[in-house]
């Protein structure tokens, strides 16, 4: 079954506002990753957070991980038009031999 589930499925905000996307998962993980996909393009790896980490930052991105709630959030601060894209979380199961599983994604649209 699908591991990650993003929430919301779609989000529209004004440029300059902060965007928050959430990801919930079902089983134990080794790490959780967030990817961005611009329309019709490949995936760009944004950030990886390991199961023993609670928060990571990268530029305007902030990712949190709560393993007790099996959830993660991606915060994009001071959004820009170029942030318009789909964002996917992907979970790497605790078993090293298992593959990463992608959620359905959140479509983010930044309004001018």
């Amino acid at each position: 079954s699908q591991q990650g589930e993003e929430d919301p499925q779609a989000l529209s905000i004004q440029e300059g506002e902060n965007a928050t996307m959430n990801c919930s998962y079902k089983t134990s993980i080794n790490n959780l990753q967030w990817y961005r996909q611009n329309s019709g393009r490949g995936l760009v790896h944004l950030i990886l957070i390991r199961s023993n980490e609670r928060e990571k930052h990268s530029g305007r991105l902030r990712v949190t991980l709560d393993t007790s709630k099996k959830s993660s959030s991606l915060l994009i601060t001071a959004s820009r038009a170029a942030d318009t894209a789909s964002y996917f979380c992907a979970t790497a199961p605790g078993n090293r031999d298992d593959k990463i599983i992608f959620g359905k994604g959140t479509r983010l649209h930044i309004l001018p």
Partner: protein
Amino acid sequence: SAVISQKPSRDICQRGTSLTIQCQVDSQVTMMFWYRQQPGQSLTLIATANQGSEATYESGFVIDKFPISRPNLTFSTLTVSNMSPEDSSIYLCSGGQTTYEQYFGPGTRLTVT
């Protein structure tokens, strides 16, 4: 990290034909994977490309439809055989040293008419 390129970037094909997609990594990677992303959907793993041996396919995908080659640690191909309009998707390859740290190519957008 690894930089991954794919060829072609897009193609329009007629039903019943086959298309081979190439994936090139700029460094040797242990793992390579092929994914399909249907319009508006998430990524679905097709198979793990094993160097020097047959690929490992996920449920719902078979070798006759999606033959995969991986002759070395930097290159793999995916063929979409006997295409139908339902095969219209973006096909992405990924590579990395482990299953859970992967780098993705830009994808191949396939349209079958």
